[in-house]
């Protein structure tokens, strides 16, 4: 137990983390490119035209993975924030801060692609539907987190304030996820479920998973590089 915890703190020290993060970031960046190209190939050349929606449904291959990432990254930020508050490790707060811009980016992409999909299929760019509204609140939570961090000069206090906001805001994640069940929304239900039999063609699922993997690898590479920048700048 003791040696184990020592090791974790050893990794939590920015000094040892720096070269390790660089190696992981390079591998993830390469994988992101490979998965991205494979995902785009499936999205445009393998997946068949949808019988009801025609070609426009191909937006799903970005929309759904981006929405997954937007929620997942927020949960990871809340996790690092809680760990940072509990353990007082500098690196935890750094990870939370490094992930926020990428999380906000994916939230915007989810909203943007949803809007471009909504116009031809629903006839409107935007509705104040529970799913869309809770996802917009997520974008504001990201902005709030980043603005709060930027507004407080004292790094320690900024990290504590940001962590509290991130942890409180995490209640919005199940709201987004279950919004399509709890409220009568225009947005369709979950595309992929662990409990139901797949409701979509296997090729569609493959394409979405490939893009999701690409986004994952991209996010890890970008966040780790951002932490490395911060460590280098602090010296």
């Amino acid at each position, binding site marked *: 137990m003791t040696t184990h915890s020592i090791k974790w703190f050893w990794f939590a020290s920015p000094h040892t983390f720096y070269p390790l993060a660089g190696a992981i970031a390079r591998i993830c960046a390469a994988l992101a490119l490979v998965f991205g190209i494979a995902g785009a190939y499936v999205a445009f050349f393998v997946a068949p035209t949808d019988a009801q929606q025609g070609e*426009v449904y191909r937006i799903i291959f970005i929309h759904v993975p981006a929405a997954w990432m937007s929620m997942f990254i927020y949960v990871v930020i809340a996790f690092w924030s809680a760990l940072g508050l509990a353990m007082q490790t500098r690196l935890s707060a750094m990870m939370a801060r490094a992930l926020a811009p990428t999380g906000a980016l994916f939230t*915007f992409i989810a909203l943007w692609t949803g809007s471009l999909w909504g116009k031809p299929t629903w006839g409107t760019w935007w509705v104040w539907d529970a799913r869309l509204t809770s996802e917009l609140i997520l974008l504001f939570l990201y902005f709030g987190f980043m603005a709060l961090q930027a507004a407080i000069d004292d790094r320690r206090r900024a990290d504590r304030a940001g962590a509290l906001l991130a942890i409180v805001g995490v209640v919005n994640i199940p709201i987004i996820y279950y919004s399509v069940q709890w409220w009568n929304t225009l947005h369709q239900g979950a595309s992929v479920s662990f409990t139901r039999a797949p409701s979509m063609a296997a090729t569609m699922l493959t394409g979405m998973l490939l893009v999701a993997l690409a986004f994952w690898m991209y996010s890890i590479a970008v966040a780790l590089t951002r932490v490395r920048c911060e460590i*280098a700048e602090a010296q």
Partner: protein
Amino acid sequence: MSEFLAMGGYGGYIWGAYGVTFALLAIEVIVLRKRKREAKA
């Protein structure tokens, strides 16, 4: 080729979604690369 780009009449929506996504990710990478160069200098 032009048929592929037209996407059955939905080209604007599809390329608008894919194009903006790709552009935003590319911008994030470019900004970060610049920051990395300056941090090392």
